[in-house]
């Protein structure tokens, strides 16, 4: 069998889920025996490749760039995994949603605290505009599996990937299904 192509993506999240992935320590070597990481913050690929087998998405969909990227990823990926609470529920990234739109968030971040030339960042084509509402992954694209946790502990990630690599539909239960 061909080696599996795995991608990881970091959207609106704190990178904690990726840290937790690195906490897999030596099991990462086991993973490397069967799979290649073809895209993500841990490798230097500019373009999301075609025909990816598994993509772990950390973070919520928070700006227009995320939306476009997710549409592309969904098209090019066989199994899409919402990786960690921000991707699954919006979590901390979505704490701003009750404010109703992006404007009050930007004002709070860039105008209120500034005492020298307050201005909102405006670089079309460089800084992607924020969405008015942060979306959990499944509100943007159909998601195949959910791996909750903030962050998901390394053991939980391992249990999940092991089932996936064995060709089974991962089915987390009990304490492995805890949010937070």
């Amino acid at each position, binding site marked *: *069998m061909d080696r599996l192509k795995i991608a990881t993506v970091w959207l609106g999240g704190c990178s904690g889920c990726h840290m937790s992935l690195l906490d897999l320590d030596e099991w990462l070597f086991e993973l490397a025996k069967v799979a290649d990481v073809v895209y993500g913050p841990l490798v230097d690929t500019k373009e999301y490749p075609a025909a990816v087998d598994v993509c772990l998405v950390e973070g919520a969909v928070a700006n227009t760039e995320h939306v476009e990227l997710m*549409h592309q990823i*969904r098209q090019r990926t*066989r*199994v899409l995994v919402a990786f960690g609470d921000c991707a699954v529920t919006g979590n901390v990234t979505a704490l701003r949603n009750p404010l109703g739109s992006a404007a009050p968030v930007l004002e709070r971040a860039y105008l209120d605290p500034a005492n020298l030339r307050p201005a909102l960042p405006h670089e079309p084509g460089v800084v992607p505009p924020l969405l008015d509402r942060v979306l959990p992954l499944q509100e943007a694209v*159909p998601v195949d599996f959910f791996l909750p946790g903030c962050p998901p502990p390394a053991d939980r990630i391992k249990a999940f990937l092991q089932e*996936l690599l064995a*060709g089974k*539909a991962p089915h987390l239960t009990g304490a492995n299904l805890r949010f937070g």
Partner: protein
Amino acid sequence: MVLAELIAIKERELAARKPVVITCCLAAGCLSSAGQAVKEALDQAVKTASLDAEVEVRGVGCMRLCCEGPLVFIDPPGTLYQQVKPEDAASLVGTVRGGTTHVARGEPNHPFFARQMSIVLENSGFMDPERIEAYIARDGYLAVRNVLREMTPAEVVSEITRSGLRGRGGAGYPTGLKWSTVAKTSSAKKYVICNADEGDPGAFMDRSVLESDPHRVLEGMIIAAYAVGADQGYIYVRAEYPLAISRLQTAIRQAKQLGLLGSGVFESPFNFNLDIRIGAGAFVCGEETALMASVEGRRGQPRPRPPFPAESGLFGQPTLINNVETFACVPPILRRGAEWFAAIGTERSKGTKVFALAGKVKHTGLIEVPMGMTLREIVQDMGGGVPDGGQIKAVQTGGPSGGCIPAAHLDTPVDYESLGRLGSIMGSGGMIVMDQQDNMVDVARFFMEFCKDESCGKCVPCRAGTVQMHALLCRLLARQATARDLAKLEELCDLVRNTSLCGLGITAPNPVLSTLRFFRQEYLDLLAPEPWKPATPPAPLPGLG
């Protein structure tokens, strides 16, 4: 009060009738189109023409054809005038002496009137609702007297059972069975409640009965109280019906003065007190357990049944709760006999039903028809069909708990079972006609918005599920919903209907389900494609299901 006095009042009243009676509708519909000013102008015109001795101007309850109000009827010769303005008064009064008037005449022989059958509304439009003598003149309170003097409570229950009367509040529960359940409980304290909360949007049947003929409801309740052994009653009316409330207050005061309410009704050992409780206009307070909580002074929220009110109701005591129209059917049943009533209607739905006919029909207003009449007869023949030659698309019955019956099923007889089979309900009597311009998804959204706003918030599926269903319907209408969203909507309908605590939640999905059943294509036409759609569907991992 004894029988002889009752008869004396009736005779005095009949003797006092002047040769000409001009009846002038003072129910809510006509009042909202200056009916009161018309009545006053007519009074004045009679005075000016010095016709006081010959002509009586009488404010009466609903005369049915609300869309043409204010309505005035002059008898003799029996002419109905429509859209009367105060300045028309002089010419109308002039017709009594052979004058002419340009005021538009109605057609009393039009099917809208001719096909009605009046039992509940038999006095409505003829009688001054603020005078107990007027009610007595039309044989009012005769049934109570006969019941108290000549029948045992068990006989009364059996009469109601044999009449086949079913609850007019929506669910159609057999009234006799409910009465006998309460009657059989052995509690020393029992209550009778009249449900006049009428919260369905667009419904005004109960309101018309209360405004046009309040004593009839009182009489029905007194008979019920005697039959089940209650000595205290409450009428729960919504605060939005100030006229109904004031007429009820007047009626109760008059009945007390004549010894028809209070201790020793009709000089018998039977006591019955009646009080009004005013609701603050929450739809859910029409649900019986929420209503009772509200009467007790608590937050109007339903509680799980059993126990049913008949075993443990108001203040924990056995309680009979019926709708306004149900009580209004009781006096004529006891006056004319169960067999008479049971001969009207269909096999399992007896008697008549009052509907508030509205929407895309020429003649809107209040109608009372025998059960079993078809929808087509009602909306085409009586209602006159869609104005300007449009096509009927569907008829909505049962309000937010009901469904839309498509034109193809217009020959369905209006009875509890037939409407139920089509995914709708008889409901309390709202009937809205829709034409080709009406968007069925929008109709479903309208009712869902109503349920969402009126959910009491106690149970999760109704409180949170209606919010989600409403959001999905809005997305559909904005053409942003995908096939996945539609599947979600159907899943929610199933959840909310099967897991909600009370009837509001259980029936909230009905407008969606019935429009999905008969007008699914309208939903499909609104679907947006998935924005992410892959060129070829993603293949599963080897071994992945």
